[in-house]
C-alpha cells in the first residue's frame, strides 16, 4: 500500500500516523519521520514557503516511494509533503514505512527523506523582517544523497 500526497493546507501528523497504523497489523514495526518548520531562539524566520511544479513533483514522489518499495521489503509507505506558506512549528513532511522487520523500515524512511530533501521538485523561500529570500540547495543534502548510490 502506497499513499503519497501533496498537502496544500496544514495536516495533523498524529492523525495521519494513527490511520496509517490502524490497518498495518502485519507490520512488525513502523518507522516515521516528521519534519517541521524550525523555531530557534532569536531566529528571524517568520514564515517559509514551498513551491512545486505540479507536472513533476507528485509523480516524482510517487516514483521515489516505488523505488523504496523495490529496494526494501515494505508493507506500506506514507509520504505527505506540504506546499504553500508555513509558520514555525508547522509540519512540512511526514514519511512512514511499515515493514515486517525494523531494519527495512528504518532504512527506507531514511532513503525517502534524503531524496525528498535533495532531489524532489520543491523550491523553498523564507520570510524575515527583510522580506522573502530563496534558499540555495545545501551541500550536505547532496552528500546525504550519495549514501544511497547503487553499488
Amino acid at each position, binding site marked *: 500500500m502506497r499513499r503519497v500526497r501533496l498537502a496544500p493546507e496544514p495536516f495533523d501528523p498524529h492523525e495521519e500516523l494513527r490511520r496509517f497504523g490502524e490497518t498495518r497489523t502485519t507490520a512488525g514495526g513502523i518507522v516515521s519521520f516528521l*519534519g517541521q518548520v524550525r523555531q530557534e531562539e532569536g531566529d528571524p524566520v517568520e514564515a517559509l514557503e*514551498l*513551491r512545486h*511544479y505540479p*507536472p*513533476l513533483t507528485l509523480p516524482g514522489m510517487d516514483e521515489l516511494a516505488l523505488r523504496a518499495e523495490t529496494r526494501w521489503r515494505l508493507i506500506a509507505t506514507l509520504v505527505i*509533503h506540504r506546499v504553500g506558506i508555513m509558520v514555525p512549528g508547522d509540519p*512540512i*513532511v511526514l514519511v512512514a514505512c511499515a515493514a515486517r522487520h525494523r531494519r527495512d523500515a528504518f532504512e527506507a524512511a531514511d532513503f525517502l*527523506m534524503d531524496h*525528498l*530533501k*535533495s*532531489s*524532489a*521538485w*520543491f*523550491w*523553498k*523561500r523564507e520570510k524575515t523582517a527583510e522580506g522573502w529570500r*530563496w*534558499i*540555495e*540547495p*545545501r551541500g550536505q543534502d547532496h552528500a546525504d544523497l550519495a549514501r544511497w548510490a547503487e553499488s
Partner: protein
Amino acid sequence: MTLTLLFLGPLEDVAGVPEMSLDVAGAATLPDIAERLDPALAVAITAPRVRIALNGQLVAPADVRAGNGDELAFLPPVSGG
C-alpha cells in the same frame, strides 16, 4: 502563436514574474527564446544546472522545440524539505 514560459523558484525573481507569454513564429529553440529575453534572464535560464520541462516532461536543452500553445518550464536546483 503564443508560448508560455514558467520560472520556478529563484528564477521567478530574475524574471520578475512567475510566467510570461512569448509570441513565436514557429518551433523555437532555447537560443531563439533566450535572445528574446532580458540578458540577465537569458543567462539565468541557460545555466548548466537549470533543467527544462516542455509541457510537463523533462527535455535536454538542445532538444527544445517549443511553439504555439506549448509550455516551457525552467527548473533551477531544488531546495526542498
